[in-house]
């Protein structure tokens, strides 16, 4: 029951988080900004519109949005948000989540190339260039965490972090920075990609989905919103697991857990907006270096952990 509630919660809250980030960003730039509820209206409008398909589009083009959305929704629903020890916690494995995200990206890149326009191919190749560094970096971070916690299950990791015996670990700090860099790159946020332009020189994610319209586009947009929630709750679950309800707690504990979770997401949104307004977009060819730093941090975290282990 709680697992089902959580699945619905992440789905319901995803557009709100993106809208909230946009609103905070607009406020920081001293604009009025659209209401945080705007993404819901956008989705509704897109669903109502008819789909325009390119003549050269194959069945893959039509199936891909649903595949992408499902994979990301499953991954987002697996992450413990307001409670640990849920029904599917045994499958909430960090490597499985990375694999689900990889699947979603694979289909999106395929769909980008399917129609055969130059923009789609360009976006797909750039996305893959970023992914080829971001995914190992994410996996290194996952390995470091699971070495430390002794498990790749997110529930177990969160419980381990709640324990006081963790102590002061530099590896954790390195992993946190690595995960932050990866999540910025994966969500196409500013130093890597600009989510709010259609400028051909800079866009990565937008170029891939340029051919989509109507309900297909709504699916892809919803998947992008969910991905932001996914990374925010992943980082919150691992590095700030306070206030999560344990298995078998009462109704009140779940309520508190939900409130704390919403608070965490809001803090993450404000921090992301502040970071994005304070930095400029980097050149595409500088991105692998930026992500390479994340990979290096993950590696270094593992190495330093190895030193602590062996002495």
């Amino acid at each position, binding site marked *: 029951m709680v697992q089902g509630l959580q699945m619905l919660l992440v789905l319901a809250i995803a557009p709100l988080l993106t809208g909230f980030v946009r609103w905070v960003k607009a406020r920081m730039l001293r604009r009025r900004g659209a209401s945080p509820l705007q993404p819901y209206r956008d989705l509704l409008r897109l669903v109502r519109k008819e789909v325009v398909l390119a003549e050269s589009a194959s069945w893959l083009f039509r199936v891909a949005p649903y595949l992408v959305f499902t994979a990301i929704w499953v991954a987002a629903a697996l992450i413990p948000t307001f409670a640990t020890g849920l029904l599917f916690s045994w499958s909430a494995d960090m490597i499985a989540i990375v694999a689900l995200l990889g699947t979603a990206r694979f289909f999106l890149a395929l769909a980008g190339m399917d129609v055969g326009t130059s923009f789609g191919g360009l976006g797909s190749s750039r996305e893959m260039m970023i992914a080829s560094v971001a995914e190992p970096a994410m996996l290194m971070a996952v390995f470091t965490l699971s070495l430390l916690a002794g498990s790749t299950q997110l529930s177990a990791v969160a419980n381990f972090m709640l324990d006081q015996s963790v*102590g*002061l*670990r*530099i*590896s954790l700090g*390195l992993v946190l920075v690595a995960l932050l860099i990866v999540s910025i790159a994966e969500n196409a946020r500013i130093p890597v990609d600009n989510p709010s332009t259609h400028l051909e020189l800079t866009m990565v994610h937008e170029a891939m989905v340029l051919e989509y319209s109507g309900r297909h586009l709504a699916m892809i947009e919803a998947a992008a919103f969910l991905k932001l929630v996914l990374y925010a709750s992943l980082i919150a679950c691992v590095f700030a697991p306070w206030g999560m309800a344990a298995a078998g707690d009462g109704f009140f504990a779940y309520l508190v857990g939900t409130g704390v979770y919403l608070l965490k997401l809001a803090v993450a949104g404000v921090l992301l907006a502040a970071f994005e307004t304070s930095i400029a977009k980097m050149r595409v060819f500088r991105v*692998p*270096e930026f992500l*390479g*730093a994340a990979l*290096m*941090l993950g*590696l*270094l975290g593992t*190495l*330093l952990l*190895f*030193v*602590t282990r*062996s*002495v």
Partner: protein
Amino acid sequence: MHGLAFDIAHLLSGGLVLISLMLLYQVRLYSLINVFAAHAVVLGLAVAWQAFVQSAPHLYVTALIALLFKGVVIPVVLYRMVQRLGIHRQIETVVGVGLTMLCGIGLVALSIMVMLPITEAADVLTREDLAFALSVVLLGLLLMVSRRNAVGQVVGFMSLENGLILAAAGAKGMPLVVEISVAFSVLIALIVIGIFLFRIRERFDTVDVHVLDGFRGEQP
């Protein structure tokens, strides 16, 4: 010895290794010098923590010297030098940043692999300090190898010396006289290097050391 004291020592010396890698990542001279100053500050903190843990008051002096000379004096002098040489544009690295970073990670792994087995009998703190110190030294060497610009090489040399101080602080027993004389010899080295840099510039109109190869008659 396990517990918080060890964790903080681990944090600080691990941070030193991290900043050494950050030095490799920098492509602009000013940011290189800034990161180098941070390197010295973290070194000072690490040595001060060692002094506290080992209750060895003379190490506080070492920490203070590191903070004052390497954290303030040398970066300011280097800043001035870069300004007067007019070379605050990009550094040309010999190989790409990504490859250098990979080499750096390899060196860190190597020094941990080498140091941990051979110091089996030593104290816990000493062991990890020695492992990290060796990797800082190797990373300093790598920085010197990977830069063509003479100022970058000077920073590599200084960060290498920071690694030596970390090793000495962990090994319990570098006398204060040695420490002070080392600090002063580094300062003297800085002055000599400074004079040399201006000489090189006067002669060749650049501080790119590859020009020297051509002058010696080798193929550039």
